[in-house]
């Protein structure tokens, strides 16, 4: 096979779960909610998709249960951070921690002490197609009336409330969508790449998705470019290995994070975050 094609395929395959989760987080953040439990929602999506696909034998059913797994985590976040008005950053961090525990226990319960060398039915390009369609949908959505209101809620809860927009409803809805997409991202990781579940298998991808939202400047096209860029940098190691360049492979594993950091530094993006991001209602 053509190495360039291989490289591109690898880049897109790595980018897809990140893109799904980042699109969801972007919508959530546009409503003014900083949900750091994406990592947990992705992990819940991983387990739920493994269970769903294993039980039904259908990877598509697994994608659906994965999305619901993410939704479950987002719902808890919504209740505590939005309804309960507890600090969003802390709740997000705590939920990620809790999800690691719950998924670990649940996996052990479902598949025994040994775990299961699961080989799940897989999907290859379906999630990528879904992600692509979502980029278009979200771009259009943001320009619609609903999108205008969503952005208004994220920019100024006070102003939005003054004209009668139900701020908490929009925020809860955006958080729920964020959870669904993070769960779908997790499901993609299991059913599109790895083919099984392992404890802590997301390994920080949820946090990468948050960085991608920032790098993509809270815009669907930007988020897509950032995700694909991240995927390409990660795929680079395979390409270099194929060519046989002898550098410590860890350098390649570091590269995406270092480039992300450099990109943040280079953008001067600070002014573009939704103005009410992360602030609870008073």
């Amino acid at each position, binding site marked *: 096979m053509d190495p360039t094609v291989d490289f591109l395929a690898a880049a897109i395959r790595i980018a897809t779960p990140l893109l799904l989760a980042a699109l969801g987080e972007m919508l959530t953040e546009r409503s003014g909610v900083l949900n750091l439990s994406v990592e947990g929602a992705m992990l819940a999506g991983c387990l739920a998709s493994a269970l769903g696909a294993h039980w039904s034998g259908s990877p598509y059913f697994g994608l659906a249960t994965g999305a619901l797994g993410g939704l479950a985590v987002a719902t808890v976040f919504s209740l505590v951070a939005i309804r309960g008005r507890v600090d969003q950053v802390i709740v997000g961090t705590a939920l990620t921690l809790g999800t690691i525990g719950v998924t670990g226990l649940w996996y052990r319960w479902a598949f025994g002490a040994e775990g299961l060398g699961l080989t799940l039915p897989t999907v290859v390009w379906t999630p990528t197609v879904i992600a692509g369609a979502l980029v278009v949908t979200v771009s259009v959505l943001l*320009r*619609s*009336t609903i999108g*205008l*209101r969503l*952005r*208004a809620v994220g*920019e*100024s809860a*006070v*102003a939005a409330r*003054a*004209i*009668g927009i139900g701020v908490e409803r929009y925020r809860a809805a955006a958080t729920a969508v964020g959870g669904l997409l993070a769960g779908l991202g997790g499901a993609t990781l299991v059913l599109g790449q790895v083919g099984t579940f392992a404890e802590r298998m997301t390994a920080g991808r949820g946090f990468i998705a948050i960085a991608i939202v920032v790098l993509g400047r809270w815009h669907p096209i930007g988020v897509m470019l950032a995700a694909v860029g991240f995927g390409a940098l990660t795929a680079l190691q395979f390409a270099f290995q194929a060519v046989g360049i002898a550098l410590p492979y860890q350098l390649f594993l570091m590269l995406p994070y270092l480039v992300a950091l450099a990109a943040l530094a280079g953008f001067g993006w600070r002014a573009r975050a939704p*103005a009410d991001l992360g602030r609870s209602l008073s």
Partner: protein
Amino acid sequence: MTAALALHGVSKAFGTNRALNDVSFAVGRGEVHALVGENGAGKSTLMRVAFGLIPPDAGEVTIDGNAARVESPRVARAAGVGMVHQHFTSIGSFTVEENLWLAAGRVGHPSGRPPISNATAVDELRAALWRGLDRTAAAETLPVSAKQRLELLQALATGADILLLDEPTALLAPAEIEALLALLRSFARGGGAVVLISHKLSDVFAVADRITVLRRGRVVLEGRRSELTSPEVAAAMVGGEIEPPPAPAATGAVRIEAGPLRVQAGEVVGIAAIEGNGQRSLLRALAGLEPMASGWRSEAPVAFLPGDRTTEGLIAGFSLTENLVLGHDRDARWTRGPWIDWGEAERWMGVLIDRFEIKAGSPRVPVSSLSGGNQQKVLFAKIAASSPAVVIAENPTRGLDFKATVELHHELRRLASTGVAVLFHSPDLDEVLSHSDRVVVLRGGELLPVRSTATRAEVGTMMAAGVGG
């Protein structure tokens, strides 16, 4: 005649605080009805009830004679009521068009563009407000007067012909205020109804047909403008007489120099400027918070009274004592080397609480538990405790009511009479003119001396010349 909007026997309590007590109020079509009163008198609460932002404990609202359950702003807007809030509600990163779409409820709504015909009073007002406004400009880039017009357009976006305006002139220049008041008049003449909340009696007497005065949640005076006088209304607002300030006592020693701006020890100099003409940088440079232009000087120690008391002047969550130490954490009275003696600082704060008659339970309570007027007194106590040579005050009466404003100017004058050089700015030209010994105009970052014989109109022209919008 049926009132366009009427509130009957409205009461509202927040905890033990009775914000509104059996208040009735009505505005008819063709009428501008001014609602005046001190802070906390209940003006804003009353309008928020009328607009559905606060449910009343008792009483009802009628619109065009029909009892209406105004349970949300959505209902109020559907019934033809529009409100302009005291603070800007446009979203800075949205364009003018997007802000109007948002207010109108859908993307692409015609209110996002100037009206095509001038058939109705609403269209006529909208056309006038649109003049010079770019629908694709981001709201945060607009000058203050254009932002204020955008607020009005937002209120009108759903076709409102009953307008509730909360302090719409607070940040405008004299000429802009006149233009706005004229628009409101002609809107009312054309069949609209306007409720104007203001603490500027000059605005009220220039435009209102009727005046209602609220004090402590009750209506204390109500009548046609032609039957009332300004002192009468002021007395009703405050509920008593106001004592005159001490006399000026300039000594000649120049403490502040910045081009044509010179402030001597013992005098109060006012800076007249429209919002956004560089007053922020000027004052902060002279206060030592930003770099100064060459040749400028202001004699240390300088005390600065920032424009935003609650976010810049004080730390709301800190106690009174901690706020005293803030900015004075090398003061020998309560520090030894790096150590802070909190007991000693607290004793000093206790002394200041007595001297400035601050209504606070103890020096340990957080500043956030104090009223706006008492917070301002804490700031003053801090300043007095630091024995400054120069005091620089940036819009020091912002958010203060009539009585507290008068007291604040007395305090500034008292400081000046002890040999301090006082420099202050307010966006309200009348306030600057009536409380300073001399006035300097700041326009586009440039200081312009004002003749001592200049009239109010002349100063107003100097402030606005060349400023667009």
